[in-house]
């Protein structure tokens, strides 16, 4: 993996180019496609092709949703991306699924808990590296204890740093030994919760490694994934990230997985974080919210979401978002997607996911364009206010509504009496 910085601006973050293996050059800030079980959530590869004409994206795969495939992959002699139905794509393997809350606890001196659909597995560093070797991803993260959030105690934070150091000793060693990983790039994990002291220690450990030991950083331990990431406060998160970024090697890309809100994500980009994932788009879709925020400066007021569960759109035949060029908005209406929600039809979340991913990919293009024009602060302000009088709330409320029989159409009954 090769990373080249194109420009750094005081207020507009940094633009770069990432080349993973034989891929074309990917522009940073980069959006990784989050996946579950190797597939983009709800979408088959055929459908994703309808969403994106860009055929060399990076899939963010997670061991917690793919652990059961490890043995099969050991027997697979083609690429990991071929196995999951995305030939030609690049793959980046993470431990935890940023789309779902990672349960806390289960950490120990020598093991990291891997929470899967089948229960919990305790991973030693050796076992972890063997599994990674089976997957043979293009890029993968080093094993770390990232079970920290804004509430973590000093003791927990310190343990996460100390244990991560120990895990990484073995990861670095195995990384250079395992034949199946000779073309893979390792990301050095930076942990340490919200403690500047602990973060500095974690960064020092990575920077002590001989040159070429790793090809980038992954910053974790700010949240425990899922909707928790959407609840983080800028005032809390930004200072600690800024503290980290200042000490990281400039020439290495920095990844922060998780469903950060669009606003927080922009602030992180301004600080110099380079790579993110689409879990926010997923979290919105799975809670029946279509992303409608605007990333093109204009005069109209915009809302963060359209709530598809809202009765008010039952007979609204407009697209989810007017002027959107995605397949869902080109061919389907709010009323239809509302109906699919009410009838628990799979196509509802498929159409929402198509829209949200499309929206998020376009958002990233707009981000890069505004950075190139040195106008990131203006974009941040636009996303913050959306031309309204108060800061827009981008938090995702979980959808706990139950579709009752009372929601059934009365039209039938009207016809039949």
């Amino acid at each position: 993996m090769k990373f080249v910085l194109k420009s750094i601006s005081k207020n507009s973050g940094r633009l770069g180019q990432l080349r993973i293996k034989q891929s074309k050059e990917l522009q940073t800030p980069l959006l990784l496609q989050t996946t579950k079980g190797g597939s983009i959530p709800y979408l088959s590869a055929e459908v994703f092709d309808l969403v994106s004409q860009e055929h060399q994206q990076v899939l963010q795969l997670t061991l917690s949703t793919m652990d059961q495939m490890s043995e099969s992959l050991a027997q697979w002699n083609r690429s990991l991306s071929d196995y999951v139905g995305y030939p030609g794509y690049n793959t980046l393997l993470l431990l935890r699924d940023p789309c779902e809350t990672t349960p806390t606890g289960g950490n120990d001196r020598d093991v990291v808990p891997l929470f899967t659909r089948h229960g919990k597995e305790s991973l030693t560093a050796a076992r972890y590296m063997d599994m990674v070797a089976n997957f043979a991803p293009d890029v993968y993260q080093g094993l770390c204890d990232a079970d920290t959030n804004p509430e973590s105690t000093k003791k927990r934070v310190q343990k996460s740093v100390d244990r991560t150091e120990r895990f990484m000793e073995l990861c670095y060693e195995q990384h250079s030994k395992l034949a199946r990983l000779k073309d893979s790039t390792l990301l050095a994990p930076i942990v340490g919760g919200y403690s500047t002291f602990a973060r500095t220690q974690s960064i020092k450990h990575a920077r002590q490694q001989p040159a070429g030991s790793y090809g980038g950083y992954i910053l974790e331990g700010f949240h425990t994934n899922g909707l928790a990431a959407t609840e983080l406060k800028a005032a809390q998160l930004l200072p600690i990230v800024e503290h980290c970024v200042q000490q990281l090697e400039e020439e290495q890309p920095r990844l922060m997985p998780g469903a950060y809100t669009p606003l927080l994500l922009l602030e992180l980009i301004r600080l110099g974080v380079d790579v993110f994932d689409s879990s926010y788009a997923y979290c919105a879709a799975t809670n029946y919210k279509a992303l409608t925020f605007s990333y093109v400066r204009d005069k109209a007021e915009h809302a963060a979401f359209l709530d598809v569960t809202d009765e008010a759109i039952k007979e609204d035949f407009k697209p989810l978002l007017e002027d959107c060029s995605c397949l869902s908005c080109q061919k389907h209406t709010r009323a239809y997607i509302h109906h699919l929600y009410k009838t628990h039809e799979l196509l509802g979340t498929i159409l929402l996911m198509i829209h949200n991913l499309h929206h998020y990919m376009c958002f990233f293009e707009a981000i890069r364009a505004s950075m190139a024009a040195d106008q990131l602060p203006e974009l941040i302000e636009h996303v913050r206010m959306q031309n309204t009088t108060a800061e827009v709330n981008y938090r995702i409320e979980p959808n706990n509504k139950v579709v009752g029989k009372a929601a059934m159409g009365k039209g039938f009954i009207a016809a039949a009496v």
Partner: protein
Amino acid sequence: MSSSKIPPLTYKVVAECSVSKARAGLMTLRHSEVRTPVFMPVGTQGTLKGVLPDQLIELDCQIVLGNTYHLGLRPGIETLKLAGGLHNFMGWPRAILTDSGGFQMVSLLQLAEIDERGVNFRSPFDNSECMLTPEHSMQIQNAIGADIMMQLDDVVKTTTTGPRVEEAMERTIRWVDRCIEAHARDDDQSLFPIVQGGLDVPLRERCVSALMERQVRGFAVGGLSGGESKHDFWRMVHVCTDRLPRGKPRYLMGVGFAADLVVCVALGIDMFDCVFPTRTARFGCALVDSGQINLKQQKYKHDMQPIDEACECSTCKRYTRSYLHHIAASETVSSSLLSVHNVAYQLRLMRSMREAIQRDEFPQFVRDFMARHFGRDPIPSWIREALAAVKIELPPDAAQEQTASS
């Protein structure tokens, strides 16, 4: 309007098998041309579960089925009317067929009762007593706007015997007249009557004759595929297709297993529907010529082949059985992937039958198919008998052959 001059359904026989009753046809509807014999995937609530309309078009699907009962409840006819019909509502540009809603009521609602006025049922909405009459069924189906709609019929359990069967058949004929009378969009939608009469040959014959006196553009054969013996099943189909007019399409309701499709095409049926291919997909099963394979089974864990080497669907082009095995139980995308394959399988089977009929090689197609489908297992006697009735002889079973030669 010029469209009112062309009937909303025209059908012509394109080729006929010189041996059996099989035929290939072209049915032209307002929204699509449909090449028959055709399998219609079921999109109960205005969607084929987990599959985009664009994907169905990619599979060359020409017509889907919607369920009047479900659509009447949700989104309801007021919403459908405002949307300008189901085609607009679901974003499906091609043809749609709707059932009458009666069958679903009788099968889903415990309290449904039938009398001369219609089907009495308790509303799942507020438990109040309601009535679905032939007129109401037409009203709802007119709002849905499907290319082909079904009359409300008096549905009895397939295994019912005695005077109730005759009563249901007679009532179905009386109700078709009420449906024809109430049908308000005959310029856009074609109403099919339904042949009833249980497992009783004279009743079936009387029903066909009576329905043929009505001005209709096609016929459905109902009241089968509900637990009756296969020996009764094929005979009833055979009796009906013997008498139904050559120049109109014939739809056999609720049939969709591969072997049944092949036999019934041989008996002269043109249209089929069944939830089976998409339902079984949700349970992790994929259709293949030998039947279906359950991808959840351990034996597929390291199987690096596609479901079917010969299949051209997007699932078989990209995914291995091994990968599908691993996601079958955990990721919802697996049901989309298997639904696409299973619908592709059904459509490909129909397409190969159509092509075989056009080449007049249908009997050989049937023999090859049965050999692939049953492999070393004996071919069920009802299939042998049904095919023999239309002069398609199958070779003796491998097992019998062995005993004969020894």
